[in-house]
């Protein structure tokens, strides 16, 4: 489809699929798309992401998550832990696949290179591998035991970027966090972008392109699409909006109100951009 509305792109994601979501904690989360998934009522998603935050919290509040494979889930300072995720985890509604960031990375790297599994450095003395989807393999060259994790290939990588063209080439300024890896590990990519730029912009400095058109299924022009999370250097975390979300998301009714309240704005921004 490539150029898409928020609604069209959200419809690509089906119940029970595995998704990975760009950004980290409260930074450059494709928040408009995550809210749209919640509005669309998608259920049973498996989220794989080393460091989820606002995304996991919204999807947990929406009851959209079956499992989370993560190293750490938090909204970070000054907000603390992701409360809806925490509530769902403590109620046993979301299966937490206890992990470590570089082990989740290894599952995505294995997928990106078409390998069945990958070893993980470190983990000595940790009980995380014992309670999760890890296995011991003997290094055939040294005889030493090493922990390995399986490849996990998400159906979708959902990424919010600074700039994209309508073919799906995209730039991220500053750290891409895990987005480069996610775009290779997933079967297909859904982009939301602050700005749509002509392809010549990418051709002028192709070394800056983080996501290639070859990987991308849909491109949504979504200015402020990470709000209330931050997009460096364009906008910082909207602390008041984040606190309002945290207040409303304490109850199902409040969360529904949050989705409704933000719907007009999410869609208006995208229409204004179109």
């Amino acid at each position, binding site marked *: 489809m490539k150029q898409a509305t928020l609604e069209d792109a959200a419809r690509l994601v089906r119940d029970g699929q595995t998704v990975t979501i760009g950004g*980290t*904690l*409260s*930074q*450059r989360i494709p928040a408009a798309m995550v809210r749209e998934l919640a509005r669309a009522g998608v259920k049973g998603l498996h989220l794989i992401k*080393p*460091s989820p935050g606002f995304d996991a919290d919204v999807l947990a509040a929406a009851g959209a998550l079956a499992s989370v494979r*993560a*190293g*750490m*889930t*938090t909204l*970070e*300072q*000054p907000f603390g*832990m*992701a409360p809806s995720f*925490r509530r769902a*985890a*403590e*109620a*046993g509604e979301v*299966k*937490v696949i*206890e*992990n*470590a*960031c*570089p*082990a989740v*990375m290894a599952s995505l*790297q294995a997928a990106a290179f078409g390998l069945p599994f990958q070893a*993980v*450095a*470190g*983990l*000595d*003395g*940790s*009980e*995380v591998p014992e*309670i999760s989807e890890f296995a011991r393999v003997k290094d055939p060259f040294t005889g030493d035991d090493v922990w390995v994790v399986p490849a996990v290939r998400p159906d979708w990588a959902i990424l919010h970027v600074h700039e994209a063209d309508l073919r799906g080439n995209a730039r991220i*300024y*500053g*750290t*891409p*966090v*895990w*987005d*480069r*890896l996610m775009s290779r590990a997933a079967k297909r990519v859904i982009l939301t972008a602050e700005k749509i730029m002509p392809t010549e912009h990418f051709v002028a400095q192709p070394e800056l392109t983080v996501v290639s058109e070859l990987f991308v299924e849909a491109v949504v022009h979504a200015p402020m699409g990470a709000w209330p999370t*931050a997009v*460096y*250097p364009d906008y910082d*975390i909207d602390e008041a909006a984040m606190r309002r979300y945290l207040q409303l998301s304490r109850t199902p009714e409040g969360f529904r109100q949050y989705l409704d309240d933000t719907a007009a704005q999410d869609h208006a921004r995208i229409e204004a951009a179109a």
Partner: protein
Amino acid sequence: MSAAYAPADIMACAMARQIRNHEITFVGVNSPLPLAAVELARRHHAPLANFVSVGGGVNPKVERIIAATSSAELGRGSASIFDNQEVYGLNGRGGIDLTFLGMAQVDASGRVNSSYVGDRDQPKVRFPGGGGAPAILPKAKRAILWRAGHSKNIFVDKVEFVTSQGNLERIVTPLCVFRFENGALRLDSIHPNVTREELADKTGFTIPNLADAPVTPAPTDEELAILRAIDPDNVRRIEFGPQ
């Protein structure tokens, strides 16, 4: 004689004093205090310390301490950008000399639980998770943990679940600095104006050398001046909650 200072200030100083020129120090997410410590060290005794931030920077310019240390702000002024794969590659091949790591609980044997308490599938308390710590603690040459609280729920005799353990060197708290030696936590120093009784009362395990340990040197005027310059809004104290 030093000016008045908050627990966060002496913690930042205690952490900064462990940072050395030429070494590579890593600061991850949720780490305003370690960020303050690194910038203090760079402006004080370790101008040639290498600083890798999870925000993407390699020796970034830090003008102000920020709360969300995963921000790409911490790539500003850097000559290259490290994404998280780079960070864990560097860690995996043994390239991190010193790391600061947060944690939910730690026990007398220096084992960390940042995962959960209670039943695994329906835990009594769900913590954020260990992040990268299970792989960083064993691989970094030296690890310093910190926590902006000090209670028997945090410093426990034995954790129910071991999220991570490894090359732990010190733990910095609002009351003291612990040192990890021969498989056990010992008191490295107790902060000024903290009584040994109070420390024992708030610690869930027996501190072997409680009576003998020295007092943490108070922040110097120079250190405090730098902290105020880089953090006029006291963001480094944010983990202590509203003051």
